[in-house]
């Protein structure tokens, strides 16, 4: 199957060798991955909590989203660089790991939601109920991404 042979090839690539080489490589990249998701999900959570009306009330969700957007992007970029690096270290096993598959599904949904509905809600006037729904769903999706990621090591 094409996919499997691609993952097998990836496991023997120079990137995979580097990730599997020095023993500090994986934990360092993983730590950067943690900082990336803290930056992205942390700043998204700030906007979500504001949408839910749970704090940061001295500015609108729109202002918060606009102010924090560059940092959310920086976090997403760091996450999307370090994630595939870790994946390459053991591609064949990750791709068949149910927790990994769950995480990737949630990540696709979370990113899709973030750049469509979430973005619209923070850029235009919507009803308070719509804002709360969007904030809650966003928090739920990102929570699922992190939980799925943590489960990879246990499944």
């Amino acid at each position, binding site marked *: 199957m094409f996919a499997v042979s691609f993952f097998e090839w990836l496991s023997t690539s120079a990137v995979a060798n580097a990730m599997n080489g020095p023993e500090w490589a994986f934990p360092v990249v993983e730590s950067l991955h943690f900082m990336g998701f803290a930056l992205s999900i942390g700043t998204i959570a700030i906007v979500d909590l504001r949408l839910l009306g749970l*704090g940061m009330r*001295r500015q609108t969700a729109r202002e918060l989203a606009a102010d924090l957007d560059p940092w959310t992007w920086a976090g997403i970029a760091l996450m999307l660089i370090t994630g595939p690096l870790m994946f390459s270290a053991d591609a064949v096993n990750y791709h068949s790991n149910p927790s990994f598959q769950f995480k990737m599904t949630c990540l696709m949904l979370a990113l899709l939601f973030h750049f469509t509905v979430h973005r619209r809600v923070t850029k235009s006037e919507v009803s308070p109920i719509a804002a709360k729904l969007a904030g809650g769903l966003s928090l739920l999706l990102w929570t699922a991404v992190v939980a799925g990621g943590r489960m990879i090591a246990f499944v």
Partner: protein
Amino acid sequence: MSIVSTLEWIESTDLSTAIREGALPYPILGGIHLLSIALFGGMLLATDLRLLGWAMVRRPVSDIVQQFRGWKRFGFLLVVASGLLLAWAEPQKLYRSPSFWIKMALFALVGVHALVFRAGVYADPARLDKGVTTQAELAAAMSLILWAGLIVSGRLIAFDA
């Protein structure tokens, strides 16, 4: 009681055994620990980046510091509580892990950071609205460095034999 026997006693408690041997508690606590790192990290970053003048510069410093304080404390509480429970599950392994002791040293520095900067920076942020002091910028930079150090040393624990 010696340290080793204390650690053995901890591992013999029902709570420790339940977290260590159950299929779900350990990964769930790990997940909560990670999520609270993101929550606490987000709040910490917002405050520190404002002090450094790198984000939300249109808002007064006091506005940001005061608004994020509650969630920052909640995130910190959650990260410490979940961390304590995770540590309770396998204290002997942590006792032998150099990364764990580096992490604890950094954690002690978090306390020092609070002692040094609390009065001058965080207790009365309204004073910073006219202009952020060098001391406040230093506090923010040190806070970011400590946070990054805690993440790296924490992650390295899993790789210590």
